[in-house]
């Protein structure tokens, strides 16, 4: 590399091309620009004239300069200029690359790999042998062996960070045993944290030769779980500035639909710094229902195993054992059972186990609730369990109150007086007592006692100096309501009232639930280490494991891990993840352990900022392109005058229109395609909005204007008749284009069948079928009632063609007893402009029989989706703008009578569509009336 001042050139020989510039100057100067082209009508007068003094045309100097500058920029660019390059000290001898591969290396793994690859490639180019130490502790590397550097590249590229911390070989000397004597250059790509054995390895390597350390490029954030009464998270970060905002912690888990998503965001608390590491507590302050769903916590924006805390039993549901008298069996008496209130209060946030005390203790509960129990047989076992960290909650009750050796009762936080007391009873003074406000620093801090909670009876504690300290909730006269005492690792809580509404109405209040939640949340979950002693479960089977990037994967062929190993945290062979033993699950988290920053004494730490120098090639190429653009503009200006140049400039600007303009053009093109506009809102027919607002009859546009007009007039006439005669008050009829309009708001669709009507699109049939399924009705009118069957045009083929894709049920002519014959008028025929043709409707189900005493069968519990006939009803209903009928029917009075019947049919159909089988239900009216009459007769 050639270095000139602050600029270095990677390919300096290319600079020799700069010598060619003066030659280019001459060549370019000799090549004149093209002549101007001028339109000039007087050319005829010029013909034959010779230039008197042919002027030698020269390229203007500034244009020449531009071109030379462009070429010079190109030459310089390809010569590989680097701003302030870092000069690699030519190293000799073998190279050892140490690559930290723990989870802390995952955030910028690709960069680390690239750095190592570069070093190996350089070594390969220089012919130096190399060795690669992947510090993931997965396999004991044995003594390192030097190999040609390029043979190591494949292994390097395949390497992935692991989900445990970087692990170094135990004995550096053994590792370096096979290394030849002489200097050994070491490149250590570190993850920034201190790990066991690092100092020893560093010392051993420094003794062999220079050690260059590449520190991580970005600060590292770790998330750990702090166990305790209230499990919390701890966010630790390295190299963080003081006032920097911490990222949110995402709580991820399945939502109620079972889809894994972000359930909550937790905000880290105030930061405390020590030794270059900032830690922030993160309280998991979530409702139990939400909290129990969480499967993992993750630092937002970080993807490595250390930023993930998998949730296991420790942050999840507590197992609560309920021990009490068995429920009373009768349904109504359940409300008297104390267990009922506890069950209802605890079930949303905890797993409940019920049974005898022995059975409950065998299930290893976190909390045991004893309801009014004394003299338990398993008291010793229970005491051991409490000593070992269990939370025992006891509720008072009549049995305890009446127990004569209450003073000797073990496992109580305070000594109780026998008998308890009654306040506000028939034989006592005073009123029932309310609750005193909770202590601001106690377990119930922040809860407010409802004013209407009153205690009528309680167990009294013997006055003692420690009584006040053990009371965590008191009545307004300062007598204890809830007392607590620590016993060994565990604690004992006594609620001095019953868990049912007998002694107080506390269990009826929301406060009871909140208090229980708080109490249960203090239960310490049983430790892994303790469970490791469990002889029945000596091995934990990995269920889900994390890779170094914090991605979960099923554990495929990992061997079960001995419980003792598991207690040591993740490591080779036991990656971070969820481990299960029996029904218990425990999470092994990568982060959270104590971390310290690594110190590199005696090694050269490579600073990121100076590593590669700034490559100027791109800038120079861009400058060359820009100069060439200027040159073309200048040439155009010379050749064609300023206007052409301006046009070129304008064209260049127009070539890059703003993206918004593209979007608009695209949208326009899409809309221009017409039939199916993409944005649905614009496509809604305003008529349909009106139809949704008021009832409106609808007809299908057939494309035949005459038919459509008849439909429109006919439905107008029918609408008018409905307005005049019934409480249905339809608006103007709506014309429906099946290919475009949504049918959801329609009820009755009149569809005149014409021969040359195009079949609607498949989408339209989808909408039609949905319309039919959701209670709509189509009235098909083939309008051929006068001609069908006598050799005239028959529309049945067209009807078949149009209706084939519809979900039409089996059809039958309207039975005499169909509800359609009596929804409004009593009808026995369904004439339109023609009459005497059968009208088809959904066939009655097979086996429907006429009920005795009922005028019609109970058919079609719903609305027939289609009604098919050929009576040309619209023509019978059609009225013109003045309200006069448009088409004649039959002749004379008979015809008018037929028109009236046609209107009655139309009204019946609309009623049928709108009310469904309501009229069918009217069959019960006679029976109801009968019954009323009988009751009236019996009454007086």
């Amino acid at each position: 590399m050639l270095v000139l001042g602050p600029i270095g050139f990677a390919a300096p020989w290319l600079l020799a091309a700069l010598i060619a510039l003066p030659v280019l100057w001459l060549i370019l100067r000799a090549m004149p620009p093209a002549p101007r082209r001028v339109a000039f009508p007087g050319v005829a007068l010029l013909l034959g004239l010779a230039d008197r003094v042919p002027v030698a045309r020269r390229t203007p100097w500034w244009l020449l300069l531009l071109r030379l500058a462009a070429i010079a920029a190109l030459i310089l660019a390809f010569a590989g200029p680097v701003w302030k390059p870092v000069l690699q000290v030519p190293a000799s001898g073998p190279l050892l690359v140490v690559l930290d591969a723990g989870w802390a290396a995952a955030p910028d793994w690709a960069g680390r790999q690239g750095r190592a690859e570069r070093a190996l490639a350089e070594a390969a180019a220089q012919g130096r042998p190399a060795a690669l130490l992947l510090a993931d502790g997965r396999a004991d590397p044995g003594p390192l062996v030097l190999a040609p550097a390029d043979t190591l590249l494949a292994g390097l590229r395949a390497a992935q960070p692991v989900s445990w911390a970087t692990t170094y070989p135990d004995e550096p000397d053994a590792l370096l045993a096979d290394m030849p004597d002489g200097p050994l250059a070491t490149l250590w790509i570190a993850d920034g944290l201190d790990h066991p054995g690092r100092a020893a390895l560093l010392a051993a390597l420094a003794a062999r030769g220079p050690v260059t350390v590449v520190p991580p490029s970005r600060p590292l954030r770790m998330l750990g779980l702090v166990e305790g009464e209230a499990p919390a998270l701890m966010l630790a970060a390295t190299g963080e500035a003081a006032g920097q905002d911490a990222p949110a912690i995402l709580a991820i888990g399945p939502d109620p639909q079972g889809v894994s998503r972000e359930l909550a965001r937790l905000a880290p608390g105030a930061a405390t710094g020590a030794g270059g590491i900032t830690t922030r507590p993160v309280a998991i302050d979530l409702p139990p229902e939400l909290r129990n769903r969480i499967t993992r916590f993750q630092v937002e924006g970080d993807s490595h195993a250390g930023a993930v805390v998998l949730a296991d039993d420790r942050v999840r549901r507590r197992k609560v054992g309920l021990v009490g008298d068995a429920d009373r069996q009768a349904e109504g008496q359940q409300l008297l059972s104390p267990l009922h209130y506890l069950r209802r209060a605890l079930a949303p946030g905890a797993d409940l186990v019920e049974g005898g005390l022995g059975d409950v203790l065998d299930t290893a509960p976190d909390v045991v609730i004893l309801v009014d129990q004394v003299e338990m047989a398993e008291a010793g076992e229970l005491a051991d369990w409490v000593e070992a960290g269990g939370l025992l909650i006891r509720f008072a009750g009549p049995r305890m109150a009446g127990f004569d050796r209450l003073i000797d009762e073990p496992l109580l936080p305070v000594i109780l007086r026998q008998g308890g007391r009654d306040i506000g009873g028939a034989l006592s003074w005073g009123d029932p007592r309310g609750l005193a406000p909770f202590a601001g620093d106690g377990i119930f801090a922040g809860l407010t006692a409802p004013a209407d909670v009153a205690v009528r009876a309680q167990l009294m504690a013997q006055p003692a100096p420690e009584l006040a300290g053990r009371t965590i909730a008191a009545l307004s006269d300062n007598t204890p309501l809830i007392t607590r005492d620590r016993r060994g690792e565990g604690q004992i809580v006594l609620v001095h009232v019953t868990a049912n509404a007998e002694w107080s109405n506390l269990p009826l209040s929301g406060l009871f639930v909140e208090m229980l939640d708080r109490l249960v949340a203090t239960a310490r979950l049983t430790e892994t280490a303790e469970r490791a002693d469990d002889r029945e479960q000596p091995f934990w089977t990995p269920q889900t494991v994390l890779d170094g990037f914090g991605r979960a994967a099923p554990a495929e062929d990992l061997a079960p891990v001995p419980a003792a190993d598991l207690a040591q945290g993740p490591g080779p062979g036991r990656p971070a993840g969820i481990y299960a033993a029996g029904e218990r699950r425990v999470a092994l988290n990568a982060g959270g352990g104590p971390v310290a920053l690594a110190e590199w004494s005696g090694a050269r730490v490579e600073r990121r900022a100076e590593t590669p120098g700034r490559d100027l090639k791109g800038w120079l190429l861009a400058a060359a392109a820009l100069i060439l653009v200027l040159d073309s503009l200048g040439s155009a200006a010379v050749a064609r005058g300023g206007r052409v140049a301006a046009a070129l400039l304008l064209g260049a600007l127009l070539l890059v229109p703003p993206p918004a303009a593209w979007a608009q053009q695209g949208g326009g093109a899409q809309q221009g395609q017409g039939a199916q506009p993409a944005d649905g809102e614009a496509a809604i027919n305003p008529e349909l909005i009106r139809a949704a607002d008021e009832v409106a009859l609808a007809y299908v546009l057939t494309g035949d204007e005459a038919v459509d007009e008849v439909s429109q007039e006919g439905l107008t006439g029918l609408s008018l008749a409905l307005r005049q005669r019934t409480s249905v008050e339809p608006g103007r009829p709506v014309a429906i284009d099946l290919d475009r309009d949504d049918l959801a708001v329609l009820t009755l669709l009149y569809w005149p069948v014409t021969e040359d009507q195009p079949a609607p699109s498949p989408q339209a049939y989808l909408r039609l079928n949905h319309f039919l399924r959701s209670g709509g009705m189509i009235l098909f009118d083939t309008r051929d009632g006068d001609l069908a069957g006598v050799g005239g045009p028959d529309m049945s083929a067209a009807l078949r063609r149009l209706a084939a894709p519809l979900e039409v049920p089996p059809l039958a002519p309207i039975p005499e007893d169909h509800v359609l014959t009596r929804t409004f008028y009593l009808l026995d025929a369904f004439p339109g402009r023609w009459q005497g043709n059968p009208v088809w409707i959904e066939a009655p189900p097979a086996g429907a029989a006429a009920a005795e005493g009922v005028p019609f069968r109970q058919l079609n519990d719903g609305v027939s989706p289609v009604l098919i006939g050929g009576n040309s009803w619209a023509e019978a209903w059609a009225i013109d703008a003045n309200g006069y009928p448009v088409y004649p029917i039959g002749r004379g009075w008979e015809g008018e009578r037929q028109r009236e019947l046609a209107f009655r049919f139309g009204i019946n159909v609309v009623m049928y569509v709108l009310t469904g089988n309501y009229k069918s239900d009217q069959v019960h009216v006679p029976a109801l009336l009968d019954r009323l009459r009988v009751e009236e007769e019996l009454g007086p």
Partner: protein
Amino acid sequence: MTPGAADLRARAESASAHLPGLILSAERLAAVVAPGAHGLRRAGPGEDFWQYRPASQGDSARSIDWRRSARSDAQFVRDREAQTAQAVGLWVSAGQGMGYAGAPDRPAKGARAQLLALALGMVLLRGGEKVGLLGQPPRAGRAQAERLAQGLLAAQAGAGDGDAPEAQALRPHQRLVILSDFLTDPDWVAVLLARAASMGVTGVLMQVLDPDEENFPYAGAVDFRSVSGALRHDSRDAAGLRQAYLDRLAARRDWLRDRAQGAGWHFGHHATDHAPAVALGWLHRVLGG
């Protein structure tokens, strides 16, 4: 009327507004065959009184001047002096070269020539003359101005750089106004003038040029092309050609002037950067004088 024609007419109205109605010079009125602009000194259809003559067989009772007849026993008929209007033919070159404008703020030569032609036509119409485009029947009356405007605009641009009037369209004893740039081969002028002289037609040749064509303000390497692209001349030193061009242009004008004067015509030239009223005033003077 199309918008273009309306616009052209409006501009022509304003250009011609300051001129009085033009009565063509009556230099040839004496010739009986050549219908003068005015009284033909014989009885015929006209406005002015000519003579009383005794009524003869064939005169209708309505034509008898009863006031004169009452002073004598015979019946007299009042004759009027026969009058007819001069016919003027207008021709504007529609060659592609006429579409040239040297600068965007100047009108094209063709547009200026059309404007001049129409303005002249309107002045003539105001004087009661018959005016028409060459090859179309001349008519009098204000409505003819509209037809003129439409006819001028409807003329299709020719395929070549220049075009020539149809010599066959000449009618005897017409006045003819030829507006062109006369930059292309001018042989047709000689042919036209010869035929015109034989038919007793006189008129005006008016050369309409762009200032760029008059001054030749070019320099350096220029590739000259005619508007239609048919002719081109590549020059490496346009400034050096200037004098030669101007000489040729002057020669062309001298030649045209000679021809015109030889045939009893007039020759004038007009540059589009001058006001059209100047050229119109000249035409008015030449035709009216």
